[in-house]
Structures are given as structure tokens and as C-alpha cells.
């Protein structure tokens, strides 16, 4: 089974985790000033990255916390996990952060 490194609990089996979709999507500060298209883009449009992808995961059956993971979508290898509020490591920022 794939092991995922929870930033709080350490390496744990994949079955304990839930994927939370693409990371680092900031909610627009003033939604009322957005067009419908801009709001729809925020709500629904996501990258479909081939390669390194920064995404949210939750240690749902563990500490319960959300964190971020930089995962290669072609190999399923998770290069690094990091806590909420932190940025992806510079060497991994080639893809859209």
C-alpha cells in the first residue's frame, strides 16, 4: 500500500487519507466584483497537470488535518508533503504553484 507522509503523524497507509483537490487556490477577496465567468473559473476550473501537481490531502482517519502534497501525476510519487499555509518547495515550483 502507498505510504503518505502526514506532516503531523509521519508515514501512514494511503487508506487513512482523502484527496482534497488542487491546492493553493485562493478565494477571491471580493467575490461581488467578479464576473460570472471569473467566479465559475474559481469554483470549477482546475489544472489537469501531467507531472508535478500540488494538491490538498486530509488525514481523514488519523489526525484529521488538511495538508498539501506535491505529487507526480504520471508516477503517483509524492515528492513532498507540507503544512497548510506553507508554499511548495522552490525546486518543485516548476508546475503552477
Amino acid at each position, binding site marked *: *500500500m502507498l505510504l503518505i507522509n502526514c506532516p*503531523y*503523524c*509521519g508515514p*501512514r*497507509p494511503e*487508506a*487513512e487519507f482523502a484527496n482534497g483537490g488542487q491546492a493553493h487556490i485562493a478565494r477571491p477577496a471580493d467575490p461581488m466584483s467578479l464576473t460570472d465567468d471569473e467566479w465559475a473559473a474559481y469554483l470549477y476550473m482546475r489544472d489537469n497537470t501531467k507531472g508535478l501537481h500540488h494538491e490538498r490531502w486530509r488525514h481523514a*482517519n*488519523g*489526525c*484529521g*488535518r488538511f495538508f498539501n502534497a506535491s505529487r507526480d501525476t504520471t508516477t503517483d510519487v509524492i515528492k513532498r508533503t507540507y503544512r497548510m499555509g506553507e508554499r511548495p518547495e522552490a525546486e518543485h515550483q516548476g508546475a503552477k504553484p
Partner: protein
Amino acid sequence: MLSPAIMRSNALSPMQSSGTTAASTTSLSVLPDAAKLVFRGKTEAIEAAGAHFGVKPSLEACRFAAVGGRSVYWLGPDEWLFQAVNENPIEVFGGMSAALQGQACSLVDVSHRSDGIAVAGPTAALVLNHGCPLDLSLKAFPVGMCTRTVLGKASLLLSRSEEHVFHVDVWRSFAPYVWQFLDEARSLS
């Protein structure tokens, strides 16, 4: 607050006498009811809660501390479970919430939410591993460790109080399923 008039029965009480008759080196037993409080808050508040409770909560991940029948389990970086075996939940909750006045934290009485099972014997880890994917070797899961994890289809809190004794704390509605799962597993191992 819950009325003391509302009593409940342990979801596992019908299970105790219904185990397999297969000889097994692993025993299952129902743990006594306990007052259980889930606390969430930052360092200052958890220290105050621990001082009142009489058990120093672990700040290290996935560890529990126990003094007599009282124990505190680390659940997350700002989340702990306070457990007092055979104590009245209303009194424990009342004392804790009074001691935490003015602190920024949350405290929830979850005493009626879950029931406990002790899995004991030299093959206890093997029995649990029938449905739990964690490495339960002493090196990876030492005595004093606790964590929420999965067993089969159920989510539960697993802790190791002795080398060959694990405690499982599982929500009521899953408790008979987990009991039967472990009972079947121990008959195979």
C-alpha cells in the same frame, strides 16, 4: 447538557457472550464505560486542561498519557481526548469546563459516542492487522502510542497500553461490526 436521566447501554453488551468458541491466543473484552471529552485548543488551554484533569497531555504526536483510570490521548496537533474510566461524564465535563473558563478552546462531551474493546494476547497485533494497515510492530507502534486509524470499514482510535494489549475505541454503531471482525480474525490466527 445531557440529562442524567438519559441512560444508555453499551453497544457491545450483547456481543460479550456471542464470541466464537474457537481456541485463540487472543482475547477480546469490553472495556468499562468512561467519561470522554474531546478538547480542541492551543497550548495554553491544553496545559490548563491537563493541570485540572491531573494528567499531562502529550504534545508529541500519537501518544497518550495515563494516571490511574484517567488518560489523555493525542488526536491531532490541537486535539485531545480526555477519558475517565467509570466516572460520571456530567461531573467530569462540569469540572473541566469550569476550569477552562476564559480559555479559547472547545470541549465536547462524547462519552456516549463510542465503546471500547481490549484486544490482548501475543498475537493481538496480527489479529488487528487483518483489517488495519498500520505497522503494529513495537518499533513502529510502541507502548504508549495512540492514533485514529481504520479497521475494515470502520474508523477507530487504536492505542497500545502494553506490548500485547491494544485498546480500540470505536463509535457505537460500528462497535458490533468491529467486535465480530476481530472475533473472526482471532479465530483464524
